[in-house]
């Protein structure tokens, strides 16, 4: 079949479809680019960073090549030391050697100054023998374990960061072993993060459900007022809300002062609500409550009151009618609210940092610590990757059990 201008209909149709598709693509292109640059690329980079291990490969490539033939029994030969010395001198110019020391130091304490000290002395040396000189500078160079670690860490990619993120480490021979007990922390913190997020989610359901119910059933004028009371804190800065909790819950804060004034507690037995887990759960519940109330409200709003009346007329008492007829219809709202609150809570950072004290820290605080203080970005990335996969697993589980299309935000 041919159209009026002589082109086959099929072709003409395909062109028209193509044009439409292009137009649609152009419309979403800004969003796509935005997501690509602000979301997909950074996350991909984080995942890369969690296994990327360039310091030794870039800093001392020739030494590493020589170590391939090393027997791993005795201290390496003069040739290895001479090569390392040469690479140290070269690396101290562009300062790539500093990164080698820093990376080794992350898993083998003391390497940083061992490298720095050695570089300073080696620079002044004219000729070898280097092995002897190295051993004279520091007897640690005679430690086979150090050389095994150099060899092990001289790979472009590593799973060492992930091992560290689950409280394990590699020994010189590449076997996975447990960290010493006094350094085990991450597994415990992942557990606590999940536990605290569950606590926050549950308190949000307990507190949010009646509020949402009131909002949905009260007459418009009263419910509007209530809605403003829910939304007003929601619009207030997170930092302001967190610090106001410090004022309220502190040792000499509003709450404690009031209780002492009322004579309920004595001035020596003031409640400790701040700088511990309790403070974090209270403050986070307050901050995340709107995330629970709003989806619940929008679901409850659509439930016709006639269902309850029908249940009553069929003989159910109010409690039974509520439990058997009303609550099941709000499950999508509870699901949506819970998953929102839980996922936001699991990555919470500012509130635990400000009111957490020592036992209210969450895993994000440790990620921030490795980003900002220890500069161990690889470990931070590995922790972040685990957290991310945890959230994805949760999403998958939710989809299996409840079904993601059952989630309603309004």
């Amino acid at each position, binding site marked *: 079949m041919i159209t009026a201008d002589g082109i086959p209909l099929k072709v003409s149709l395909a062109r028209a479809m193509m044009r439409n598709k292009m137009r649609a693509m152009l419309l979403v292109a800004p969003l796509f680019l935005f997501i690509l*640059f602000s979301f997909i*690329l*950074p996350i*991909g*980079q984080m995942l*890369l*960073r969690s296994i*990327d291990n*360039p310091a030794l490969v*870039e800093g001392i490539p020739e030494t590493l090549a020589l170590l391939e033939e090393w027997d791993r029994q005795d201290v390496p030969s003069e040739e290895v030391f001479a090569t390392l010395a040469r690479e140290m001198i070269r690396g101290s110019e*562009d*300062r*790539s050697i*500093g*990164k080698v*020391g*820093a990376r080794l*130091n*992350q898993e083998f*304490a*003391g*390497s*940083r*100054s061992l490298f*720095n000290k050695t570089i300073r002395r080696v620079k002044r040396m004219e000729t070898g023998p280097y092995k002897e000189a190295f051993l004279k500078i520091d007897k640690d160079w005679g430690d086979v374990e150090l050389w095994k670690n150099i060899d092990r860490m001289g790979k*472009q*990619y590593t799973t060492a960061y992930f091992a560290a993120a689950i409280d394990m480490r590699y020994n010189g021979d590449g076997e996975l072993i447990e960290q010493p007990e*006094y*350094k*085990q*922390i991450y597994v*415990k*913190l992942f557990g*606590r993060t999940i536990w605290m997020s569950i606590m926050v989610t549950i308190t949000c359901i307990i507190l949010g459900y009646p509020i949402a119910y009131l909002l949905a059933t009260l007459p418009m004028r009263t419910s509007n007022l209530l809605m403003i009371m829910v939304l007003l804190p929601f619009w207030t800065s997170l930092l302001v809300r967190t610090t106001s909790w410090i004022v309220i819950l*502190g*040792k*000499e804060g509003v709450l404690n002062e009031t209780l002492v004034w009322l004579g309920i507690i004595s001035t020596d037995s003031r409640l400790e609500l701040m*700088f511990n887990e309790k403070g974090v759960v209270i403050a986070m519940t307050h901050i995340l409550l709107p995330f629970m109330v709003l989806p619940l409200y929008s679901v409850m709003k659509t439930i016709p009151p006639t269902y309850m009346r029908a249940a009553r007329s069929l003989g159910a008492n109010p409690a039974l009618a509520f439990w058997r007829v009303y609550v099941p219809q709000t499950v999508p709202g509870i699901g949506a609210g819970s998953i929102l609150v839980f996922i936001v809570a699991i990555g919470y950072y500012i509130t635990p*940092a400000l009111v957490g*004290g*020592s*036992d209210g*820290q969450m895993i994000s605080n*440790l990620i921030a*610590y490795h*980003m*900002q*203080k*220890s*500069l*161990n970005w690889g470990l931070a990335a590995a922790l972040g990757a685990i957290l991310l996969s945890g959230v994805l697993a949760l999403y998958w589980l939710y989809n299996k059990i409840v079904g993601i299309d059952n989630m309603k935000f309004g």
Partner: protein
Amino acid sequence: MKHLLKHTTAIVAGVAAMGFVAAGPAVAADAITAVSWGGSYTVSQQEAYHKPYTAKTGMKINSVDYNGGLAEIRAQVEAKNVTWDVVDLELADAVRGCDEGMLAKLPIDELPKGADGTPAADDFLAGTVTDCAVGTIVWSTVIAYDTNKVKGYKTIADFFDTKKFPGKRGMRKTPKINLEWALMASGTPADKVYDELGTEEGINKAFATLDKIKNDVIWWEAGAQPPQMIADGEVVMTSVYNGRIFNAIAVEKKPFEISWDGQIWDIDLWGIPAGTPRFKEAWEFVKFSTDTQRLADQASWISYGPTRKSSVPLIGKHATAGIPMLPHMPTAPDNFKTALQNDFIFWADNSDELNERFNAWLAN
């Protein structure tokens, strides 16, 4: 992979730069960005360095606050988009940043002579000028307590004695300084502290001492927090930077007292991030702000000692409160008796290890 990482970093940084940074004032050549720790310390720098420098050269100085560490500098240097020009650093960070190529090497021999004609190399206190940074102040971490609630505090051991002195303590959330103090409190003299910390038993002993007060500690992270915590009654005694608490005592007339026993002193330095397009301007500013007069001027705003010997005779009274500043310096003889210098080499080596251990100790 390495290239992929670098390319994506460059792309992301480029996009961010197009969107946010290009419009900022920092790129203009008639201004540089000086980064410091905020609060009364930044004020002292603005009064002593920034304002006179702007008056002299017309160069504007943008003040930015940070909480220490090298993270931002490393991010800027790696993304090749450096917006910070001068950064106030702790010694350990200055050395580490230099080793790992995050800070620019400085032409140290261009530093001006002291006002009395001493060459800069002799005028600066030993160790306060490094390849990549120039020292400005000697500061110290001390114990301060509330005189209304604590009576008869004498030595650092009292800080760890919750029976004799009940009440909460404030401590910086890091093993640095706390481990040193824990050893001093259990009887180690100041000059033996780092020898002992170098051994497993020493570390165990220090953590065991910290254990005794663990439940009574509130941890702080920013320098402005401890004066606030003690003023709020959240703690009865706290570790604190001497300059910050001096302002609370002398200027705001708070009933606090400094105990100098076991003070651990350190220095702050100006460093210049590697790759800033305004290196020349930044270096001019560093030279200006570390001359004899400027360092002496700063001491009239906050009780931190100058790193130049020639500045000491010029130290006068506090700019607003009119108090003579010399007796309040960490280096004043009465305060310095049991002082310990923070050993940055020890911490450069062991901070990865000890921080991990400290974090685990905190969480358990």
